[in-house]
């Protein structure tokens, strides 16, 4: 078990080192930092001195090591566009993205499981068939079109909900939250539905197929023979046993929610990390791009590692196979 964990941790670190290398080489590929810092009027001595001062005369490996050293401490340099430390900007933007992701995650899980169970139990009913067909369309509808559709319905036509921004926020010691004001909560509704819809359909379809599988098992038939009520069978026996694969998928989808937040945040002009990243690409703001890349890869690699290790605890066969 220990060797399995060590092996997986080692692989994860290797992946992070490689993404770090990608992030670092963006700096070296895209322009010379000396050009960015010194103006037109400069002497060769100035250039040499600055090069030495910044350590740019060192071998690539040494420079990369220094980059990693700084990155681990959360220092990604200064944004080319805003002139402020990247870490500061990211921290300022993080609450918006995390709140949005949390709300849409909860929505996706709650509605996904409920609808999944419903469509499995009433699999020949009209309502269940309508939901299943709607989910098919939902899967092929691009996220940004869902967002625009919601804006058109609820902001333009009905005028019920705001179409952009976070509304009023309250500052709780560096963490700005939209949960405490009415306008903040109203602003959350459309973006979180947009972001959560795809994950919801995914969870729903998974729960449905797992439920259908479990309901065919002998122990369910036996429970029925014992005269247990449908509700006890469906929820106490069947649903419980569908949860292992569902939890895995939820875990893996957690990272996707943060990544897909980029699209939702752009549609709703939500001032989060994703919008920051898109703006960074548009203006070729390398430090911000590199920091976002590192942040998101730490997150994805971490989640994958956790899921793998949890799986090894649950299923001993995997320990030998890996």
């Amino acid at each position, binding site marked *: 078990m220990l060797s399995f964990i060590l092996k997986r941790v080692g692989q994860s670190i290797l992946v992070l080192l490689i993404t770090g290398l990608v992030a670092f080489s963006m700096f070296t*590929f*895209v322009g010379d930092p000396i050009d960015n810092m010194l103006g037109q009027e400069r002497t060769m001595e100035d250039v040499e001195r600055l090069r030495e001062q910044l350590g740019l005369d060192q071998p690539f490996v040494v420079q990369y090591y220094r980059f990693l050293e700084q990155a681990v401490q959360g220092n990604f340099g200064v944004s080319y566009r805003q002139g402020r430390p990247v870490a500061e900007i990211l921290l300022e933007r993080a609450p918006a993205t995390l709140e949005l992701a949390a709300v849409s995650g909860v929505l996706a899980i709650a509605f996904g499981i409920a609808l999944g169970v419903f469509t499995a139990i009433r699999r020949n009913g009209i309502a269940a068939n309508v939901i299943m067909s709607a989910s098919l369309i939902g899967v092929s509808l*691009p996220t940004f079109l869902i967002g*625009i559709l919601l804006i058109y319905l609820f902001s333009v036509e009905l005028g019920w909900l705001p*179409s952009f921004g976070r509304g009023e926020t309250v500052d709780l010691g560096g963490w700005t939250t939209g949960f405490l004001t009415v306008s903040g909560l109203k602003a959350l509704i459309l973006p979180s539905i947009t972001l959560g819809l795809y994950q919801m359909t995914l969870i729903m379809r998974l729960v449905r197929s797992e439920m259908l599988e479990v309901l065919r098992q002998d122990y369910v038939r036996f429970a029925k023979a014992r005269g247990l009520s449908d509700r006890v069978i469906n929820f106490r026996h069947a649903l419980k046993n569908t949860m292992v694969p569902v939890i895995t998928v939820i875990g893996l989808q957690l990272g*996707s929610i943060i990544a897909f937040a980029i699209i939702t945040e*752009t549609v709703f002009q939500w001032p989060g990390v994703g919008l920051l990243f*898109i703006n*960074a690409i548009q203006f070729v703001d390398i430090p911000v*791009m590199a920091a976002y890349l590192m942040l998101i890869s730490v997150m994805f690699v971490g989640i994958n590692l956790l899921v793998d290790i949890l799986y090894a605890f649950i299923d001993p066969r995997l320990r030998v196979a890996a």
Partner: protein
Amino acid sequence: MTRFFDSDIFYAFRTSPVAVVSATVTVLMVLAAVFAPLIAPTNPFDPSSLNLMNGFTPPMEPNAFTGDSFLLGTDDQGRDVFSTILYGMRISLFVGVAAVLFAMVLGIFLGLLSGYVGGWTETIIMRAADVQLTFPSILVAMLIFGVAKGVTPVEYRDQMAIWVLILAIGLSDWVQFARVVRGATLVEKSKDYVAAARMIGRSPLTIMVRHILPNVLSPVLVIATISLALAIIAEATLSFLGVGAPPTQPSLGTLIRIGQGFLFSGEWWILFFPACTLLALALAVNLLGDWLRDALNPRLR
């Protein structure tokens, strides 16, 4: 040709209404995109054919100043929405098809190589594939687009955007192909005809390309069709986010991005028609891919 019309595949196609409808829609849209310059009433990128007075003409209504009428209306600069959609579809389809072809060639090459050669080559390629799979492909495409944009000199950025887009989407999508081709190659490798080819002294490259490749192509075809739908959506998403096709060469995604700006002022048609076109295109290709997957799957026959 008669052999094709008598084949199982064509029979399965003829008897499936979903397949016939989605194939018809796809073919019609591809034709419309290819012949866009002939079909489109105006060339939206020729400033001399535009009249600013025609701006914001609603669909099927004569303009208040000039009396011109447009099938799907016009945008703020008086461009005919129908024409911009045709030209936009051209770019969307071109980027989608080129990106899938690129991903396909790269994936087939790397998949054949890792399956046939094995050893270190295989380990490196497949580990790289695993790592890439942990990230959503749209994120990978965004990052590649960002880096490539940074590398190209400022004055070429708009011109190169389309090619950068193809590169980004293609590189984000090769893993699927490589995995399937590697799996199929591992099976084919152990068969007698490969041993025979090796025995008569054919080079590994010839064996890979001439003997193994034709036998692993049918799953590749299915993945390519499904990938095409995904690539079209990925392109539209990137362009919509402003990190794809530039406004000078608008794809359907760029048109939707432009149209979103007029949602509040009531000019719904600038957004609505490109969005419907994108949806129809993606849905048709998607359904076609689903059908093809089931039709080529021997277990479902």
